[in-house]
């Protein structure tokens, strides 16, 4: 039995080392499967919970076009959620189980969505900074070792780059607008910048889940490398439209050809991750409330389907 496990693991690792994709029917170590379920379900939940802060502004979107774009964007996020749930189901877990794990707190979602969307520019900031950070991460995941996850990322990245552009467009328009609009934009920037940097996770020196993830090529690039890439492209975009990055220690490092940034407040990061962010409770309460309110609809649909199946 133990010998079998070793043989399977060796064959698996050999595949990984040759940069071949692992597919749902391939044998894989249990730890690899569980690692992916944790990461992919978290990713799916993040897409779905992320609909809340943006959904908060749908009925107040200030023009027909902006409402259309926002609604289409949130729909994309929901679609990504669906797609990722399906990809995760190939690992032998149902969507229902994943949602239970979300509600029990066993499964997480991106910490960033525990922050509130307070003014219209937040919709710009979420698209530009939050989706912008997500893209950097997801582009890297296009080469992740699990086939269904990698393919989901290819598709998702295409839509995310549209989201980032629409977010930046909102920010750029507001920075061209009235004094109040500029204030809203800068206020949103001030509140979303640091949480966006935290999206890449702890520094490499302090990243608890990275070891096997690199060996199994689930993760291809480190948190700090991805974070730096995000900072370098985003700072210039901010300057271009006149936004100030809220980091007094931010400066260009000529020698390293990248920006040095100030210290990230990991205490805040840990506090929010552990449940004490501004919106943790609301986000989860909202999801549970509407999931429970919809139970009778799902039951009716299932009962009807059963009748149809019996009839045929």
């Amino acid at each position, binding site marked *: 039995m133990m010998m079998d496990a070793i043989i399977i693991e060796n064959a698996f690792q050999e595949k990984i080392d040759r940069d071949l994709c692992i597919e749902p029917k391939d044998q894989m170590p249990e730890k690899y499967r569980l690692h992916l379920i944790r990461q992919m379900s978290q990713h799916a939940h993040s897409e779905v919970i992320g609909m809340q802060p943006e959904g908060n502004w749908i009925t107040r979107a200030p023009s027909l076009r902006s409402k259309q774009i926002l609604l289409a964007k949130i729909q994309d996020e929901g679609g990504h959620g669906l797609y990722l749930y399906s990809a995760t189901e190939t690992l032998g877990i149902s969507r229902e189980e994943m949602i239970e794990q979300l509600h029990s707190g066993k499964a997480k979602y991106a910490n960033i969505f525990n922050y509130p969307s307070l003014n219209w520019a937040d919709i710009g900031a979420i698209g530009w900074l939050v989706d912008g950070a997500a893209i950097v991460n997801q582009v890297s995941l296009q080469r992740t070792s699990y086939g269904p996850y990698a393919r989901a990322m290819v598709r998702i990245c295409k839509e995310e780059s549209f989201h980032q552009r629409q977010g930046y467009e909102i920010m750029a328009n*507001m920075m061209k607008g009235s004094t109040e609009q500029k204030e809203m934009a800068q206020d949103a920037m001030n509140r979303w910048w640091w949480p966006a940097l935290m999206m890449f996770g702890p520094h490499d020196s302090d990243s608890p889940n990275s070891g096997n993830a690199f060996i199994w090529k689930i993760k291809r690039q480190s948190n700090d490398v991805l974070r730096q890439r995000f900072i370098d492209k985003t700072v210039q975009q901010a300057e271009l439209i006149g936004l100030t990055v809220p980091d007094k220690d931010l400066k260009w490092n000529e020698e390293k050809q990248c920006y040095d940034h100030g210290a990230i407040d990991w205490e805040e990061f840990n506090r929010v991750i552990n449940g004490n962010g501004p919106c943790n409770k609301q986000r989860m309460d909202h999801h549970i409330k509407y999931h429970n309110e919809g139970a009778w609809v799902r039951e009716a649909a299932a*009962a009807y389907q059963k009748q149809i199946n019996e009839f045929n």
Partner: protein
Amino acid sequence: MTQQEALYKYLLRLGDNALIQSYRLSEWCSRGPILEEDLALTNIALDYIGRAQNLLQYAAAIEGKGHSADHLAYRRAEHQYYNNLITEMPRGDFAYTIVKQLFISTFEFLLYTELCHSKDEAIAGIAGKAIKEVRYHWTHSRDWCYRLGKGTAFSNDKLQQAVNDLWMYTGEQFEMGAEEEMLSAEGIAFDNKALQSKWLEMVSTVLTASNIQIPTESYMQTGGRKGVHTENMGHILAEMQYLQRAYPDATW
């Protein structure tokens, strides 16, 4: 009333129905009973925003005062909106939204089928696009009526309750204003009254197949078409117009 004035008001009516219906549907975002339905309902909302935009843009052109579609959508006072009251009724539960959509989509299916042949080319063009969307909206709500009506006793009750509660808001769809009389005589609009028996037949077929009783209540609420709304309307506008009203000089 000139034909231009009649057309302006008619376009506002069609546009406002789409605008307010999209508002209510968009409230489902992140609140659907299942993710697929969250997407389906907001997708329908998106179709309606697109239609509202086309209709209000045309209305603004006919008005000829240099206003934009956004100006018409966001800057009018409550009594200047002409949507049917049914569109402004609250989101309610899933059965309520489905029944509302069935009632509205059935009417729109009949109306926009006719408007595809409007002598006004712009209206015919908008109708041509709308009718494709309406068919999907109608099928979606019909299929959910089947599921809810025949699914469980509880879901059947919910559906029946929604039908009973919304029934008195269905008659207004078939009213004819002076401007519609004028435009239908010209082959631009269509006689709404002529759609009523077909509407009743289509709706009854779906509801009966869903084990739902057709209400016998005959009193019908009215007012939206004259700009007299339910109390819901002011709250919709307070929220929808918030940024446009608070920062009137800003462009977004």
